Protein backbone atom coordinates (compact mmCIF):
# COMPACT_ATOMS: atom_id res chain seq x y z
CA UNK A 1 0.00 0.00 0.00
CA UNK A 2 0.96 3.60 -0.32
CA UNK A 3 3.46 4.45 2.26
CA UNK A 4 5.61 7.48 2.69
CA UNK A 5 9.17 7.34 3.69
CA UNK A 6 9.19 9.21 6.96
CA UNK A 7 12.65 8.32 8.05
CA UNK A 8 15.14 11.10 7.93
CA UNK A 9 17.54 11.22 5.07
CA UNK A 10 20.80 9.38 5.48
CA UNK A 11 20.21 8.51 9.14
CA UNK A 12 22.75 11.02 10.31
CA UNK A 13 23.25 11.26 13.99
CA UNK A 14 21.65 14.02 15.89
CA UNK A 15 23.62 15.85 18.42
CA UNK A 16 22.79 15.82 22.11
CA UNK A 17 19.81 17.93 23.10
CA UNK A 18 18.08 17.62 19.76
CA UNK A 19 14.71 16.06 20.29
CA UNK A 20 13.97 12.97 18.26
CA UNK A 21 10.93 13.63 16.12
CA UNK A 22 8.22 11.03 16.51
CA UNK A 23 7.90 8.68 13.57
CA UNK A 24 4.26 8.69 12.47
CA UNK A 25 3.09 5.76 10.41
CA UNK A 26 0.91 6.66 7.46
CA UNK A 27 -0.41 3.12 7.10
CA UNK A 28 -4.19 3.16 7.42
CA UNK A 29 -6.07 0.29 8.93
CA UNK A 30 -8.26 -0.95 6.10
CA UNK A 31 -10.22 -3.55 8.06
CA UNK A 32 -13.28 -1.38 8.86
CA UNK A 33 -13.52 -0.24 5.27
CA UNK A 34 -13.43 -3.79 4.00
CA UNK A 35 -16.01 -4.77 6.60
CA UNK A 36 -18.27 -2.00 5.44
CA UNK A 37 -17.67 -2.99 1.84
CA UNK A 38 -18.74 -6.56 2.41
CA UNK A 39 -21.72 -5.46 4.43
CA UNK A 40 -22.89 -3.34 1.51
CA UNK A 41 -22.21 -6.16 -0.94
CA UNK A 42 -24.38 -8.57 1.01
CA UNK A 43 -27.08 -5.94 1.29
CA UNK A 44 -27.18 -5.28 -2.44
CA UNK A 45 -26.94 -8.96 -3.32
CA UNK A 46 -30.03 -9.64 -1.25
CA UNK A 47 -32.09 -6.68 -2.37
CA UNK A 48 -31.29 -6.78 -6.05
CA UNK A 49 -33.81 -8.12 -8.52
CA UNK A 50 -31.88 -9.50 -11.41
CA UNK A 51 -34.69 -10.82 -13.53
CA UNK A 52 -37.64 -8.77 -14.66
CA UNK A 53 -40.97 -10.52 -14.52
CA UNK A 54 -42.09 -11.73 -17.90
CA UNK A 55 -45.54 -11.98 -19.32
CA UNK A 56 -47.20 -14.86 -21.02
CA UNK A 57 -49.80 -14.05 -23.63
CA UNK A 58 -53.12 -15.78 -23.51
CA UNK A 59 -55.88 -15.33 -26.06
CA UNK A 60 -59.34 -16.60 -25.35
CA UNK A 61 -61.89 -17.70 -27.91
CA UNK A 62 -65.08 -15.70 -28.03
CA UNK A 63 -68.09 -17.44 -26.58
CA UNK A 64 -70.51 -18.09 -29.39
CA UNK A 65 -73.73 -19.98 -29.76
CA UNK A 66 -73.69 -20.11 -33.54
CA UNK A 67 -72.48 -23.51 -34.74
CA UNK A 68 -70.84 -22.10 -37.87
CA UNK A 69 -68.53 -19.94 -35.79
CA UNK A 70 -67.47 -22.75 -33.53
CA UNK A 71 -64.27 -24.61 -34.12
CA UNK A 72 -64.61 -28.10 -35.44
CA UNK A 73 -62.59 -30.75 -33.75
CA UNK A 74 -61.80 -34.26 -34.89
CA UNK A 75 -62.46 -36.81 -32.20
CA UNK A 76 -59.27 -38.74 -32.90
CA UNK A 77 -57.15 -35.58 -32.71
CA UNK A 78 -58.36 -34.30 -29.36
CA UNK A 79 -56.54 -34.62 -26.08
CA UNK A 80 -58.25 -33.30 -22.97
CA UNK A 81 -56.07 -32.58 -19.95
CA UNK A 82 -57.53 -31.79 -16.56
CA UNK A 83 -55.12 -30.54 -13.88
CA UNK A 84 -56.47 -31.18 -10.43
CA UNK A 85 -55.41 -31.25 -6.80
CA UNK A 86 -52.06 -32.57 -5.65
CA UNK A 87 -50.30 -31.62 -8.93
CA UNK A 88 -52.05 -34.49 -10.66
CA UNK A 89 -53.24 -34.28 -14.24
CA UNK A 90 -56.01 -36.42 -15.65
CA UNK A 91 -56.36 -36.82 -19.36
CA UNK A 92 -58.30 -38.69 -21.97
CA UNK A 93 -58.14 -38.96 -25.73
CA UNK A 94 -61.09 -38.33 -27.97
CA UNK A 95 -64.44 -37.37 -26.57
CA UNK A 96 -65.17 -40.09 -24.03
CA UNK A 97 -64.33 -38.94 -20.49
CA UNK A 98 -64.79 -42.45 -19.10
CA UNK A 99 -61.40 -43.39 -20.61
CA UNK A 100 -59.71 -41.19 -18.05
CA UNK A 101 -56.05 -41.77 -17.28
CA UNK A 102 -53.77 -40.36 -14.61
CA UNK A 103 -50.55 -38.44 -14.99
CA UNK A 104 -48.66 -35.84 -13.00
CA UNK A 105 -46.64 -32.67 -13.37
CA UNK A 106 -43.71 -34.36 -11.71
CA UNK A 107 -40.83 -35.65 -13.84
CA UNK A 108 -42.46 -34.31 -16.99
CA UNK A 109 -44.93 -37.18 -17.11
CA UNK A 110 -47.58 -35.03 -18.74
CA UNK A 111 -45.09 -33.80 -21.33
CA UNK A 112 -44.53 -37.36 -22.50
CA UNK A 113 -48.28 -37.89 -22.76
CA UNK A 114 -48.72 -34.77 -24.88
CA UNK A 115 -45.73 -35.50 -27.10
CA UNK A 116 -46.82 -39.09 -27.56
CA UNK A 117 -50.29 -38.00 -28.68
CA UNK A 118 -48.78 -35.33 -30.88
CA UNK A 119 -46.61 -37.87 -32.64
CA UNK A 120 -49.59 -40.09 -33.37
CA UNK A 121 -51.81 -37.30 -34.70
CA UNK A 122 -52.01 -35.24 -37.84
CA UNK A 123 -50.39 -31.93 -36.82
CA UNK A 124 -53.05 -29.80 -38.44
CA UNK A 125 -55.88 -31.45 -36.49
CA UNK A 126 -54.13 -31.97 -33.17
CA UNK A 127 -55.68 -29.97 -30.38
CA UNK A 128 -55.26 -29.96 -26.63
CA UNK A 129 -58.20 -28.94 -24.48
CA UNK A 130 -57.30 -27.72 -21.02
CA UNK A 131 -59.97 -28.05 -18.37
CA UNK A 132 -58.68 -27.27 -14.91
CA UNK A 133 -60.90 -28.56 -12.12
CA UNK A 134 -61.89 -26.36 -9.20
CA UNK A 135 -59.15 -27.96 -7.12
CA UNK A 136 -56.38 -27.06 -9.54
CA UNK A 137 -54.14 -24.18 -8.52
CA UNK A 138 -53.27 -21.21 -10.67
CA UNK A 139 -49.75 -22.60 -10.86
CA UNK A 140 -51.04 -25.82 -12.40
CA UNK A 141 -52.98 -23.82 -14.97
CA UNK A 142 -49.98 -21.72 -15.94
CA UNK A 143 -47.78 -24.81 -16.01
CA UNK A 144 -50.03 -26.60 -18.43
CA UNK A 145 -50.30 -23.50 -20.64
CA UNK A 146 -46.52 -23.29 -20.54
CA UNK A 147 -46.33 -26.94 -21.45
CA UNK A 148 -48.20 -26.11 -24.67
CA UNK A 149 -45.44 -23.71 -25.56
CA UNK A 150 -42.68 -26.11 -24.54
CA UNK A 151 -44.17 -28.91 -26.61
CA UNK A 152 -44.89 -26.57 -29.52
CA UNK A 153 -48.61 -27.33 -29.56
CA UNK A 154 -50.22 -24.89 -31.96
CA UNK A 155 -53.86 -25.37 -31.06
CA UNK A 156 -55.04 -25.41 -27.50
CA UNK A 157 -57.94 -23.98 -25.57
CA UNK A 158 -58.74 -23.22 -21.97
CA UNK A 159 -62.28 -24.43 -21.37
CA UNK A 160 -64.52 -24.92 -18.35
CA UNK A 161 -64.87 -28.46 -17.14
CA UNK A 162 -68.24 -30.19 -17.56
CA UNK A 163 -69.93 -31.75 -14.50
CA UNK A 164 -69.72 -35.11 -16.25
CA UNK A 165 -65.95 -34.90 -16.59
CA UNK A 166 -65.56 -33.68 -13.06
CA UNK A 167 -67.45 -36.74 -11.87
CA UNK A 168 -64.86 -39.00 -13.48
CA UNK A 169 -61.98 -36.95 -12.07
CA UNK A 170 -63.50 -37.06 -8.59
CA UNK A 171 -64.08 -40.80 -8.85
CA UNK A 172 -60.48 -41.40 -9.93
CA UNK A 173 -59.20 -39.18 -7.15
CA UNK A 174 -61.22 -41.10 -4.62
CA UNK A 175 -60.02 -44.42 -5.98
CA UNK A 176 -56.42 -43.24 -5.73
CA UNK A 177 -56.94 -41.77 -2.29
CA UNK A 178 -55.93 -38.20 -3.21
CA UNK A 179 -57.34 -35.60 -0.90
Amino acid sequence: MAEMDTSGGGGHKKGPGVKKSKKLSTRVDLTPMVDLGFLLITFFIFTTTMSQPTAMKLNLPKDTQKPEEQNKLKESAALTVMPSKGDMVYYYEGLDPSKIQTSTFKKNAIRDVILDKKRRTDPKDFMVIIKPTKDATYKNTVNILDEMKIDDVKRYALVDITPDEYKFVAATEQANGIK
Partner: protein
Amino acid sequence: MTAMCDVAFLLLSFFILATKFKPPEALSVTTPSSVSSKIAPEKNVVMITMDRDGKVYFSVSDANHPEKKDIIDEINTSKNLGLTDAEKKNFSNNPSAYIGVPFSMLKSYLDKTPDQLKGINLPGIPCQDSTNNELVDWIRAAVQVSAGGGFNGGHMNLLVKGDDAAKYPSFQGVIIAFKKNDQLKFQLVTNPVAAPPGSELDKVQKAAGNKVAE
Protein backbone atom coordinates in the same frame (compact mmCIF):
# COMPACT_ATOMS: atom_id res chain seq x y z
CA MET B 1 -5.56 -8.17 1.13
CA THR B 2 -5.35 -5.41 -1.46
CA ALA B 3 -6.56 -7.71 -4.20
CA MET B 4 -9.48 -8.94 -2.13
CA CYS B 5 -10.38 -5.39 -1.29
CA ASP B 6 -10.34 -4.50 -4.98
CA VAL B 7 -12.58 -7.42 -5.88
CA ALA B 8 -14.97 -6.60 -3.06
CA PHE B 9 -15.41 -3.04 -4.18
CA LEU B 10 -15.75 -4.05 -7.80
CA LEU B 11 -18.62 -6.34 -6.80
CA LEU B 12 -20.04 -3.62 -4.63
CA SER B 13 -20.11 -1.08 -7.42
CA PHE B 14 -21.60 -3.67 -9.78
CA PHE B 15 -24.47 -4.45 -7.46
CA ILE B 16 -25.09 -0.80 -6.68
CA LEU B 17 -25.40 -0.07 -10.37
CA ALA B 18 -27.32 -3.20 -11.28
CA THR B 19 -29.81 -3.06 -8.47
CA LYS B 20 -33.35 -1.98 -8.98
CA PHE B 21 -35.36 -1.70 -5.87
CA LYS B 22 -38.59 -3.53 -5.66
CA PRO B 23 -41.40 -1.13 -4.96
CA PRO B 24 -42.85 -1.99 -1.59
CA GLU B 25 -45.71 -4.27 -2.45
CA ALA B 26 -48.60 -4.51 -0.12
CA LEU B 27 -49.69 -7.71 -1.80
CA SER B 28 -47.10 -10.42 -1.76
CA VAL B 29 -47.57 -12.81 -4.62
CA THR B 30 -45.32 -15.64 -5.76
CA THR B 31 -45.82 -15.89 -9.48
CA PRO B 32 -45.49 -19.20 -11.32
CA SER B 33 -42.67 -19.63 -13.80
CA SER B 34 -42.93 -19.97 -17.55
CA VAL B 35 -40.64 -20.18 -20.55
CA SER B 36 -42.01 -16.92 -21.89
CA SER B 37 -39.23 -14.42 -22.45
CA LYS B 38 -41.27 -11.32 -23.14
CA ILE B 39 -40.77 -8.67 -20.48
CA ALA B 40 -43.99 -7.66 -18.77
CA PRO B 41 -45.10 -4.12 -19.69
CA GLU B 42 -44.88 -1.47 -16.99
CA LYS B 43 -46.91 1.34 -18.47
CA ASN B 44 -50.62 1.48 -19.23
CA VAL B 45 -51.20 -1.58 -17.13
CA VAL B 46 -54.46 -2.68 -15.59
CA MET B 47 -53.42 -5.34 -13.16
CA ILE B 48 -55.60 -8.01 -11.65
CA THR B 49 -53.87 -9.63 -8.71
CA MET B 50 -54.86 -12.92 -7.12
CA ASP B 51 -53.36 -13.68 -3.75
CA ARG B 52 -52.75 -17.10 -2.25
CA ASP B 53 -56.29 -17.28 -0.88
CA GLY B 54 -57.73 -16.57 -4.29
CA LYS B 55 -58.86 -13.04 -3.42
CA VAL B 56 -58.88 -10.67 -6.34
CA TYR B 57 -57.54 -7.11 -6.38
CA PHE B 58 -57.66 -4.41 -9.03
CA SER B 59 -54.93 -1.85 -9.64
CA VAL B 60 -53.62 0.49 -12.30
CA SER B 61 -49.94 1.20 -13.03
CA ASP B 62 -48.34 4.08 -11.12
CA ALA B 63 -47.82 6.38 -14.07
CA ASN B 64 -51.47 6.49 -15.11
CA HIS B 65 -52.97 9.07 -12.75
CA PRO B 66 -55.57 10.51 -15.14
CA GLU B 67 -56.86 7.06 -16.06
CA LYS B 68 -57.13 6.09 -12.41
CA LYS B 69 -59.17 9.20 -11.77
CA ASP B 70 -61.43 8.46 -14.73
CA ILE B 71 -61.94 4.86 -13.66
CA ILE B 72 -62.93 5.75 -10.11
CA ASP B 73 -65.21 8.52 -11.46
CA GLU B 74 -66.83 6.04 -13.80
CA ILE B 75 -67.41 3.51 -11.02
CA ASN B 76 -68.71 6.25 -8.74
CA THR B 77 -71.36 7.40 -11.21
CA SER B 78 -72.39 3.98 -12.49
CA LYS B 79 -72.73 2.50 -9.01
CA ASN B 80 -74.00 5.64 -7.23
CA LEU B 81 -71.45 5.33 -4.47
CA GLY B 82 -71.35 9.02 -3.57
CA LEU B 83 -67.60 9.16 -3.14
CA THR B 84 -66.14 12.51 -2.13
CA ASP B 85 -63.26 14.10 -4.00
CA ALA B 86 -60.92 13.26 -1.17
CA GLU B 87 -61.89 9.60 -1.34
CA LYS B 88 -61.36 9.52 -5.08
CA LYS B 89 -58.00 11.19 -4.68
CA ASN B 90 -57.05 8.60 -2.15
CA PHE B 91 -57.17 6.09 -4.99
CA SER B 92 -55.92 8.16 -7.91
CA ASN B 93 -53.05 9.95 -6.18
CA ASN B 94 -51.67 7.00 -4.29
CA PRO B 95 -49.25 5.19 -6.60
CA SER B 96 -49.57 1.83 -4.92
CA ALA B 97 -53.32 1.98 -4.38
CA TYR B 98 -55.30 -1.10 -5.16
CA ILE B 99 -58.92 -2.03 -4.72
CA GLY B 100 -59.69 -5.14 -2.75
CA VAL B 101 -63.20 -4.64 -1.45
CA PRO B 102 -66.77 -4.97 -2.78
CA PHE B 103 -68.59 -1.80 -3.85
CA SER B 104 -70.54 -1.78 -0.60
CA MET B 105 -67.32 -1.29 1.35
CA LEU B 106 -65.54 0.96 -1.14
CA LYS B 107 -66.43 4.26 0.53
CA SER B 108 -65.21 3.28 3.97
CA TYR B 109 -62.16 1.64 2.41
CA LEU B 110 -61.14 4.81 0.58
CA ASP B 111 -61.64 6.85 3.77
CA LYS B 112 -58.74 5.09 5.37
CA THR B 113 -55.19 6.31 5.09
CA PRO B 114 -52.50 3.90 3.89
CA ASP B 115 -51.25 3.59 7.47
CA GLN B 116 -54.66 2.51 8.69
CA LEU B 117 -54.86 -0.09 5.97
CA LYS B 118 -51.75 -1.91 7.11
CA GLY B 119 -52.57 -5.27 8.54
CA ILE B 120 -56.23 -5.14 7.56
CA ASN B 121 -57.51 -8.30 5.98
CA LEU B 122 -59.31 -7.23 2.83
CA PRO B 123 -62.09 -9.40 1.43
CA GLY B 124 -61.08 -8.96 -2.22
CA ILE B 125 -63.35 -8.02 -5.12
CA PRO B 126 -66.17 -10.55 -5.41
CA CYS B 127 -65.81 -12.39 -8.71
CA GLN B 128 -66.02 -16.10 -8.05
CA ASP B 129 -69.53 -16.60 -9.32
CA SER B 130 -70.97 -15.09 -12.46
CA THR B 131 -74.05 -13.58 -10.77
CA ASN B 132 -72.12 -11.26 -8.48
CA ASN B 133 -68.98 -10.54 -10.45
CA GLU B 134 -67.98 -7.00 -9.53
CA LEU B 135 -64.72 -7.30 -11.39
CA VAL B 136 -66.80 -7.06 -14.58
CA ASP B 137 -67.68 -3.46 -13.63
CA TRP B 138 -64.09 -2.56 -12.86
CA ILE B 139 -62.90 -3.94 -16.18
CA ARG B 140 -65.77 -2.22 -17.96
CA ALA B 141 -64.75 1.12 -16.44
CA ALA B 142 -61.14 0.53 -17.52
CA VAL B 143 -62.22 -0.47 -21.03
CA GLN B 144 -64.38 2.66 -21.33
CA VAL B 145 -61.51 4.88 -20.22
CA SER B 146 -59.25 3.13 -22.69
CA ALA B 147 -61.79 3.50 -25.51
CA GLY B 148 -62.13 7.21 -24.64
CA GLY B 149 -58.45 7.73 -25.45
CA GLY B 150 -56.98 6.92 -22.05
CA PHE B 151 -53.92 4.74 -21.61
CA ASN B 152 -51.94 6.53 -24.29
CA GLY B 153 -54.68 6.20 -26.90
CA GLY B 154 -56.22 2.90 -25.92
CA HIS B 155 -53.07 0.84 -25.41
CA MET B 156 -54.32 -0.81 -22.29
CA ASN B 157 -52.42 -3.88 -21.14
CA LEU B 158 -54.46 -6.33 -19.13
CA LEU B 159 -52.22 -8.23 -16.78
CA VAL B 160 -53.09 -11.06 -14.45
CA LYS B 161 -50.69 -11.68 -11.61
CA GLY B 162 -51.62 -14.75 -9.65
CA ASP B 163 -50.11 -16.58 -6.75
CA ASP B 164 -48.97 -20.17 -7.19
CA ALA B 165 -51.41 -21.35 -4.57
CA ALA B 166 -54.49 -19.50 -5.85
CA LYS B 167 -57.21 -21.90 -6.88
CA TYR B 168 -58.53 -22.10 -10.40
CA PRO B 169 -62.05 -20.75 -9.68
CA SER B 170 -60.60 -17.27 -8.93
CA PHE B 171 -58.81 -17.30 -12.25
CA GLN B 172 -62.00 -18.51 -13.89
CA GLY B 173 -63.87 -15.56 -12.35
CA VAL B 174 -61.26 -13.19 -13.78
CA ILE B 175 -61.59 -14.82 -17.20
CA ILE B 176 -65.38 -14.45 -17.03
CA ALA B 177 -64.96 -10.75 -16.21
CA PHE B 178 -62.65 -10.33 -19.22
CA LYS B 179 -64.94 -12.25 -21.54
CA LYS B 180 -68.00 -10.26 -20.56
CA ASN B 181 -66.15 -7.13 -21.65
CA ASP B 182 -64.86 -8.73 -24.86
CA GLN B 183 -61.31 -8.48 -23.58
CA LEU B 184 -59.95 -11.70 -25.01
CA LYS B 185 -56.26 -10.86 -25.02
CA PHE B 186 -54.38 -10.57 -21.79
CA GLN B 187 -51.06 -11.47 -20.26
CA LEU B 188 -50.06 -13.51 -17.26
CA VAL B 189 -47.15 -12.28 -15.18
CA THR B 190 -44.62 -15.05 -14.67
CA ASN B 191 -41.07 -15.70 -13.60
CA PRO B 192 -38.81 -16.49 -16.52
CA VAL B 193 -37.17 -19.91 -16.78
CA ALA B 194 -35.20 -21.41 -19.65
CA ALA B 195 -36.84 -23.90 -21.96
CA PRO B 196 -36.10 -27.45 -20.82
CA PRO B 197 -33.18 -28.86 -22.81
CA GLY B 198 -34.21 -31.23 -25.56
CA SER B 199 -37.82 -30.09 -25.64
CA GLU B 200 -39.62 -28.97 -28.80
CA LEU B 201 -39.38 -25.32 -27.84
CA ASP B 202 -35.68 -25.69 -27.15
CA LYS B 203 -35.17 -27.07 -30.66
CA VAL B 204 -37.25 -24.29 -32.19
CA GLN B 205 -35.27 -21.65 -30.32
CA LYS B 206 -31.96 -23.19 -31.34
CA ALA B 207 -33.09 -23.43 -34.95
CA ALA B 208 -34.04 -19.76 -34.91
CA GLY B 209 -30.51 -18.91 -33.82
CA ASN B 210 -31.56 -18.27 -30.23
CA LYS B 211 -33.86 -15.56 -31.33
CA VAL B 212 -36.09 -14.36 -28.56
CA ALA B 213 -39.31 -16.31 -28.73
CA GLU B 214 -42.47 -14.59 -27.73
